[in-house]
């Protein structure tokens, strides 16, 4: 296995981008990443792209080919791979691109993630999100992502005395960070009252506890680490990659306040990197709901199980805290264009490790981590990266 580095990053603005199509978005992110890396298009060996449900959102499949074509690479006839694991599709595409370069099969690959969610009405978006659940046992009976995360939140509150306010504080923190991110969907700080007062989705989670419906794309360029400096002064090395799965339906699990997929994927990434949770300086985690961030910081080993809520109170994860989490604004404020999310997390960590995050820069950020979850913890991808 060769070491692999990220040499270029590109991201679109996230939001309700009514004047941009799926192909506009991914082509824009890809072009930005290519320009940022300094490679020329003809050096590309393969394209990987994460997209959860282009078929349902825009009625389009054969996404790999579309992305290559829309980006102007059809004449290269290179392999294109579309990767899907619900809203972990981006993180998983990143891992597949990483593995292909690490294996020696490819030298330079572009990995993109994209989703165009606002071409369908709200209820259709909710139904499509629920396809990340077990359709036969959960979604068919009316369960939604919000309902299941709400069950987890209720249980967490019961078992660990986590409070409604602590959940809301996750959103407050992430909105404060998102306000500093020019690409975020919601660039404004939100007081806790606004979170608590927003319409209830599924108790205890209200609308402002959940990530929005978003359009957006992100892309990164990978190459063998020993060649990275040829292209960029500030490459970022992937030092750990982990992926794990769990039962598709929530009811099949022994515990619901722990995502074993996160625990196992993190173990794999920590083992490979030789790092431990306390070595991480900055993390982007999958806060599709506020409770998800609390689970994530516990399952990744940053905080003891059950203390995620009080860690929020202690401001451990704020921008100036001991371990800043979701400096980009997270899924909550930056936006959550499903397939793009995992790649956008990598873009944020690379930006931090390069020292290019302006007002939201974490001081002395050397090692960063991303955690991307598919469904309600059914799959998880974790990456650890280090500046070179």
């Amino acid at each position, binding site marked *: 296995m060769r070491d692999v580095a990220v040499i270029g990053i590109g991201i679109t603005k996230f939001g*309700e981008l*009514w*004047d941009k199509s799926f192909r506009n978005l991914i082509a824009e992110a890809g072009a930005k990443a290519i320009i940022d890396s300094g490679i020329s298009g003809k050096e590309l060996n393969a394209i990987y792209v994460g997209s959860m449900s282009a078929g349902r959102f825009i009625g389009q499949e054969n996404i790999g080919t579309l992305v290559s074509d829309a980006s102007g690479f059809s004449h290269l006839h290179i392999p294109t791979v579309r990767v899907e694991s619900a809203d972990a599709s981006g993180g998983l595409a990143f891992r597949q691109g990483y593995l292909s370069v690490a294996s020696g099969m490819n030298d330079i690959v572009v990995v993109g993630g994209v989703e165009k969610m*606002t071409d369908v*009405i*709200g209820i259709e978006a909710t139904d499509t999100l629920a396809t990340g659940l077990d359709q036969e046992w959960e979604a068919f009976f009316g369960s939604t992502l919000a309902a299941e995360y709400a069950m987890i939140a209720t249980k967490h509150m019961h078992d660990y005395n986590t409070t409604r306010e602590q959940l809301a504080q996750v959103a407050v923190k992430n909105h404060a960070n998102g306000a500093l991110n020019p690409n975020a969907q919601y660039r404004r700080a939100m007081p806790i009252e606004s979170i608590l*007062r927003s*319409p209830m989705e599924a108790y205890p989670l209200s609308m402002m506890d959940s990530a929005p419906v978003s359009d957006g794309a992100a892309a990164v360029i990978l190459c063998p680490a020993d060649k990275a400096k040829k292209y960029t002064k500030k490459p970022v090395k992937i030092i750990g990659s982990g992926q794990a799965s769990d039962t598709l339906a929530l009811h099949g699990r022994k515990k619901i306040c722990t995502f074993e997929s996160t625990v196992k994927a993190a173990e794999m990434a920590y083992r490979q990197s030789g790092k431990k949770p306390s070595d991480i300086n900055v993390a982007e985690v999958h806060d599709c709901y506020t409770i998800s961030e609390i689970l994530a910081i516990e399952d990744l080993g940053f905080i003891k199980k059950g203390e995620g809520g009080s860690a929020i109170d202690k401001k451990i994860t704020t921008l100036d805290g001991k371990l800043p989490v979701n400096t980009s604004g997270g899924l909550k404020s930056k936006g959550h264009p499903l397939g793009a999310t995992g790649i956008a997390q990598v873009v944020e960590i690379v930006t931090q490790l390069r020292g290019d995050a302006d007002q939201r820069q974490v001081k002395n950020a050397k090692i960063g981590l991303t955690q991307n979850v598919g469904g309600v913890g059914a799959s998880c991808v974790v990456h650890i990266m280090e500046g070179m």
Partner: protein
Amino acid sequence: MDKVGIISYGAHIPRFRIKTEEIAKAWGKDPITISKGLGINEKSVPSPDQDVATISVEAARAALKRININPQEIGAIYVGSESHPYAVKPTGTIVGEAIRATPLLMVADYEFACKAATAGIQTCMSLVKADMIKYGMAIGSDTSQAAPGDALEYAASAGGAAFIIGNQNIIASINDTCSYTTDTPDFWRREGKKYPAHGGRFTGTPAYFKHITNNAKNLMEKLDTKPQDYKYAIFHQPNGKFPVRVAKMLGFSIEQIQQGLLCPNIGNTYSGATMLGLASVLDVAKPGDRIFLTSYGSGAGSDAFDITVTQNIKKLKKNNAPLVSELIENKKYVDYSTYAKYRDLLYYD
């Protein structure tokens, strides 16, 4: 431009009202958040005996009561609505017969979401200017539909207004008009569907605001006018918030839009909305007052008008028919279950 304008007008609003609070309660929503968020306190509700034909006839008769013309001299009737009682069979024929304007009469029903009626005014203006008719009648009237539980339910209401267009004894001259149209699917109802669908926030910036601001600016640029030149402004009012925001965006003040802003107390009367707003303004306007009107219809388009009130408005027998403010005040509240019965929400296939 040869003089053309309004020679009379009339309005009708069903007397039943339902409060925003009552609808919110039925759906377990917070009434204050919704009422404040939409800027709507209550909306009009048509009774089971009222439809676009009856509302149009009431408004048309009100317009005729205020002047002394022979209905046989009305050469065209255009009824704009998105709730015509028949899919095939024009409402205009019923109105024409009811006001005795048939049979030497051009009739067509118009549909352009909430701006069909202002398109009707433009057609009447053209026919009058071309000397093809003496008088034309443009009516905007709706008993608009909203799926139970949809956000539209707080706004979709009923009402209408009729304007008689001609070139003699004009009470308000229409100095100019222009339109702005694109293919923008922000709100629609497919053939055979009972309720419309909409694109949520997409109905805002790229739809309502884009079309109204562009069209309004185009007209003011063409006429070399500015917002301060107008005494009154009327903007389409799908809720109580959008018209206030669009007025601000264009540089109009709250005082300028207040008289024509009816949505907070009667809801969105769709094709009737800007027409009723104009009727409300004409109820109080004085000779020389200049009025700026911009409608909006989803799908999408906007018609803008520059209007000047003339001395003849003093001769108009306004009190022969109810003023808009009287129609608004004449009300009786219904609860949600009565509303559900009146609006046929309890039907099943």
